[in-house]
């Protein structure tokens, strides 16, 4: 961050590192809305006791705003995981300097991140849409309200 110079032995300031620096800022700005509103919604607006299997399946992912929330959750999933994983990569480079250990820990991080992205996408895409609603008609209904 701005106040302390990062000492990094891996990842020279090449194009990828510059892109990753910008990505942290852009995804951070997106998460400011996505993650903060998600938390505030669950705790203050809905209340955590509202969270049940039926509520998520019928109201959040199939209600009038079903398609909106599925898209929202997908964006949150991708931004939060990629931002968090890239941040963890920086932290690993800061503390783990041995070549082998650095590579091993980062490889584990990448594999875990990929698995989590697939699990997160799988549930968003496979929880059935109710009735004969197609994705398109749900979107039209949502926009029509």
């Amino acid at each position: 961050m701005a106040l302390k110079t990062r000492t990094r032995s891996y990842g020279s300031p090449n194009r990828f590192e510059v892109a990753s620096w910008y990505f942290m800022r852009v995804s951070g700005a997106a998460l400011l809305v996505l993650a903060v509103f998600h938390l505030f919604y669950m705790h203050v607006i809905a209340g955590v006791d509202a969270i049940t299997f039926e509520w998520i399946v019928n109201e959040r992912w199939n209600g009038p705003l079903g398609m909106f929330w599925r898209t929202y959750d997908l964006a949150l999933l991708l931004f939060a995981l990629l931002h968090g994983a890239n941040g963890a990569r920086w932290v690993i480079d800061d503390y783990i300097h041995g070549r082998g250990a650095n590579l091993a820990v980062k490889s584990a991080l990448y594999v875990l991140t990929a698995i989590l992205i697939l699990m997160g996408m799988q549930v968003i895409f496979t929880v059935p849409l109710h009735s004969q609603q197609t994705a398109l008609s749900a979107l039209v209904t949502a926009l029509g309200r």
Partner: protein
Amino acid sequence: MASIVASIWEGITYRGREGHWAWLLHRVSGLGILLFLALHIVDIYLIGVGKEIFEAFLFFYHSAPFKVLVMGLLFGVYYHAFNGVRIILVDFWPERFSNWKTQRLMFRVVIVLTLLAFIPSAIATVAPLFNLHMPWWNH
């Protein structure tokens, strides 16, 4: 291994002022949120597996000890979010934001905003334990 411990220890004991605490808390909160997110993706994934198994997991969420962890998560996310904005401002407009007086002021603003978001969320989170109910909740 020893060098890892040494550099983490240096990060904790380095004697800076607000800036150093801001940095350390940003790092710890970011890693903590990532850890929670991994668990969270597994629990939401269970919706696709079946109602029984998902609700068994939910039980854990509603337990009092878990709510203590949730308090940490709420504080961590709000802090990391507002402090992240501070970092972005300093990085993109250094001539405007990087002098130490502005920095110190901004750090205090970050703490105030964090508390403003945290307090209502924390109250709402423990309310069910005391049978309290917000008027707009319909469950």
